[in-house]
Structures are given as C-alpha cells and as structure tokens.
C-alpha cells in the first residue's frame, strides 16, 4: 500500500470502530453471554437515534434527557420483543427478530410526519425548515475541544472511546457476578439452570434489555457523529457486521469486542487504499462493492479456519 492515509481519515475510522464497539457489545451480551440469536439488533440503534432526534426537534426537549429516553425506549422495546418471542425455537426467534427490525425500518420510512421518512432527519421539522438535534452535542464537543486543546474529530474519538471503555469494563465486571454466572450457564444449558430454580425467561429478557441499551447508545453516537441519518442507515447489514465483530474477537469476553471492532474498521476502511492492480482499475462505486466482497470473504474465511475468533480457544467454542 503506497498511500499515506490522512490522520483525519484514520480518526474517523477510530470513531466508527468505537461506535461499533458499543453496538457489538450488545450482541456479545445477548449472544456471547446469554445465547440469544437476536438478528434485529440494529433496531435498537435506530430507536436510540430516532427517539433522541424526534424529541429534540419536535418536543424541544433537552438533548441529554432525550438521549436518556432513547436508551430507555430501546430497553423497553427489547423487553416487548422478547416477551412473546423468546419461547420460540432458536431459528424461528432469529427470523422474528429480523422481521422486527425490518418492520421498524419500514415504519420509519413511511411515517414521514414522525420520522422525516426516507429522506431522514433533514425532514424532521417539516419541509423548508432545518432540523437540528445535535445542538447541545456540538456545544459540549466544543467545550471538550477547548478544554483538551484538540480538534473536533479527536474530541469525538476520545468521547466515544471513553464511553466504550466504560461499557466494556462494566460488562466485564457484571459477568463476574452471580448474575453473570447464571447468564453464562443459560447459554450452555437452560434446562439445567431451570432445574436449579432460576427463572431463565427473566434472565433472557434482562440480557435483551442490556444489549438494547448498548445498541441505543451506539445509535446516539452515530446520530451525533453524522448529524444526519435516515432509515436506510439501520439496515440488517449492520447487525451482521456486529455479529462478525463479536465472532472475530471471540465469543464470551467483553474486552475482545473492541479488538474485533478495530480489525473490522481497518478492513472496511483499508480497502480504500488498495492502490495496486486490479483494484486501481476500479472506480469508487466499484471499490465499494469490492469492500463488501472482502468483508464477505473474511466472514467465510473466519468460519472455515478460525471460528473461535482471534482470542477464543477451541475448548471454548460456543458457536453451536
């Protein structure tokens, strides 16, 4: 690779990796720890982002309060999703969760008055009026920039990774508690756990709620970083990326998630810099296709050659 990537570009990659860390951590809690096949995880990201934006623009609510509402609503959605569906067998549950996230995406695309429709948050305040939901974020960011004497990108990077590190630490700690012990046991054999008097259903709901909260926080940072989003930003593809990150790092450990996210970020962004043939013969849209082909091949390769991920051990293989 002959180009020297700009610092601005790589800090951008770092921010995206941080957001994906939070997002994928939710998958780790739900699947790596509790064994739940939730393939609709991106819905929680969307709920977090949209709730915050809508409350700020339409109800004039304080942005931080709106953000909290976004997280709370996502957790509620997780519980509501789980109540009727957790008793389905694993593969049916998986399809239902994708259906859930797609239904939400359709609603967001069609209910223009609520969400701005397919044009996204630009439309939130109605035609002809500019909608801004991140005013409070921008001023907070400004304070951080001045306080630490860094650029806007670096400030965001620091903020995202601070929260991500906190989340990873918190999840690690919780998994070492008796609660975490029950959760890990459920993943492996829920009948054995039930025979010891634990309410498996309640634990699964809690795992969904915690995962949803993490997804929603990721959604908030996504909204703040890009200042604009639309329903298509929350497509199932993102959920699959999160799964890939979790498996890449290794299942069942919180600290492997940021590693997986960074590797993913590098792969995803690094393909922009393949300046040698045959890639140099492609234009930018074609390179975007190649990027996704590479991601697909990485997933396949991972499963073929190292399904336990970078840090997993064969004995701990949980995928089945």
């Amino acid at each position, binding site marked *: 690779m002959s180009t020297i990537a700009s610092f601005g570009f790589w800090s951008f990659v770092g921010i995206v990796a941080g957001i994906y860390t939070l997002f994928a951590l939710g998958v780790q809690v739900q699947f790596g720890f509790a064994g739940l096949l939730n393939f609709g995880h991106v819905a929680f990201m969307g709920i977090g982002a949209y709730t915050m934006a809508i409350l700020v623009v339409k109800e004039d609510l304080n942005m931080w309060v709106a953000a909290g509402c976004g997280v709370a609503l996502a957790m509620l959605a997780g519980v509501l999703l789980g109540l009727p569906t957790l008793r389905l067998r694993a593969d049916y549950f998986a399809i239902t969760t994708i259906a859930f996230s797609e239904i939400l995406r359709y609603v967001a695309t069609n209910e223009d008055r609520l969400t701005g429709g397919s044009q996204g948050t630009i439309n939130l305040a109605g035609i002809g009026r500019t909608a801004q939901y991140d005013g409070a974020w921008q001023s907070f960011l400004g304070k951080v920039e001045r306080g630490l004497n860094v650029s806007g990108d670096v400030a965001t990077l620091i903020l995202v990774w601070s929260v991500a590190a906190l989340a990873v630490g918190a999840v690690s700690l919780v998994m070492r508690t*008796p*609660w975490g012990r029950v959760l890990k046991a459920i993943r492996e054999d829920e*009948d054995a756990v039930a*025979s*010891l*008097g634990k309410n498996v259903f309640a634990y699964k709901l809690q795992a969904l709620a915690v995962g949803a909260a993490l997804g929603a926080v990721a959604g908030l940072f996504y909204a703040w970083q890009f200042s604009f989003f639309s329903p298509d930003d929350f497509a199932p593809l993102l959920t699959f990326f999160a799964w890939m990150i979790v498996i890449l790092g290794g299942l069942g450990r919180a600290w492997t998630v940021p590693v997986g996210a960074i590797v993913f970020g590098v792969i995803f962004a690094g393909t922009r810099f393949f300046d040698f043939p045959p890639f140099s013969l492609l234009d930018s849209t074609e390179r975007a296709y190649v990027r996704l082909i590479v991601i697909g091949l990485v997933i396949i390769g991972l499963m073929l050659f190292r399904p336990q991920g970078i840090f997993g051990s064969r004995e701990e293989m949980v995928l089945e």
Partner: protein
Amino acid sequence: MNAPILEVREVTCSFGGLRAVDRASLDVEPGSITALIGPNGAGKSTLFNVVSGFLAADRGTVRFEGRRIDRSAPHRIARFGLVRTFQVPRALTRLSVLDNVLLAASGHPGERLSGLLLRPGRVRARERKARERATELLELVRLESHAGDYAGVLSGGERKLLDFARVLMAGPRLVLLDEPMAGVSPTLGRQLVEHALGLRADLGMTFLFVEHDLDMVMEASDRVIVMNEGRVIASGAPADVRADERVVDAYLGTTLSL
C-alpha cells in the same frame, strides 16, 4: 403417618401413539429414601420429567407438600424445594466446577441486577458463604481438587458427582436422582449413600431415585416402587417387592395371563 411429600395421581403421558406413562400413581413418604425401579422403557425418566415440570402430562395430578405442581414451570418447582438430576449429567462445561455448584445457591441477591446495584455488601457476604458451602460439598464428592477447572474436563462419573453436589447445594426437601450411581465407583457410591442417610437424619431430606443396581437398591432404600410399561405395578418394603410375582415377571419379560 405424615402426609406424603409427593403424590402422583393417574398421570398419563403419550408420545405419538406410545403411552410412556399410563395412569401412574405413587406416594413418597417424607424423610424416606425411595427407589423407583423397572425395566428399560418403563417410563421412569418420563415420570421424573413430569414431576419436575419438564414435561406436561396429558392427564393426572402431581402434588408436592400438598401443593399442585403439575402445571408449574420447572424453575418454580425447584424453588418450592423439589430438585432433580438428569440421567445424562448436565455439567455446565464452560463454567468452573466450583461455579457449577455455586450456581445452585438459592436466594442469592447477587443473582439479581437490583441486588448487585443496591446491596453489594449483602451480595459479597452471601457469595462468601456460598463458596464455603460449595467447597464443602465438593470435598464430599471428592472433586475439590478440580474446583477451578472447567467442568468440561471431568469424566462422566465425575460429572454425576458434580450433579449430586449441585443438587444438594440448592438445599431442597425432595431430591430426585436419575441413576445417581451409574459410572461411580462402589466405595464412593457407598459414601454418597451414607451422606444421603445423614442428610435425611439431620434435615429430613427425602430422596427418590431411579437405579438399576438392584442390590444397592435393596440395601439403601426404605421403600421401592416398581414401574413397568408406564404403570406402577408394585410398591412397598424392598423385601416384599423383591418377592412380588409381578415384579419378577416384569424383569423377566413375561406377561401375566389372567
């Protein structure tokens, strides 16, 4: 005579066209060590599944300490004080041996998120006590050297012992053991029986176990219940049951012709 701790009445359970359990009725006396025996396919494990809530019976009732449990979820039944082991031991291989036993601790505030947040001191104290008790139980089954290992390294027989320790950790009043001696050395088996007798004496714990080793059954149990083809065909003191014609026939495979 105390009321039975477990009353099974007319329980029927069919799979497809097959009646695995056919209007089975039995009583288990509190504080007894009762054996459930019968040839393969007699329906013993199915009955265990129904009693512990893992299978819904088509008909019939199950009462534990007077309370109906045949419609209750397995974890509820375990909380009421009825705990079971499985025929194929269900060791949680990716948890440590100690964690496996700790899992069975009942009423642990640390197992609730609210407990973790609001009562960390109580959680720590409870966890300490649980560890002590768990280590004691592991010593009882001679697995304390494996306490820190993944349960996956244990052999089949060792996993059975782990199951036993785990069940005791839950502090139940009625323990259902599904073939507890299979794969366990006779000396250790003897010690477990001793311990069960001790628990029965000290805590009034009741044991209902399925077993194929008839000699052991005759020695260790107060009462024997015999099943064949889904039905309970005899129950009573070991010596009486052993002499019962129907029981002999069941094991030899002949059917009574009347």
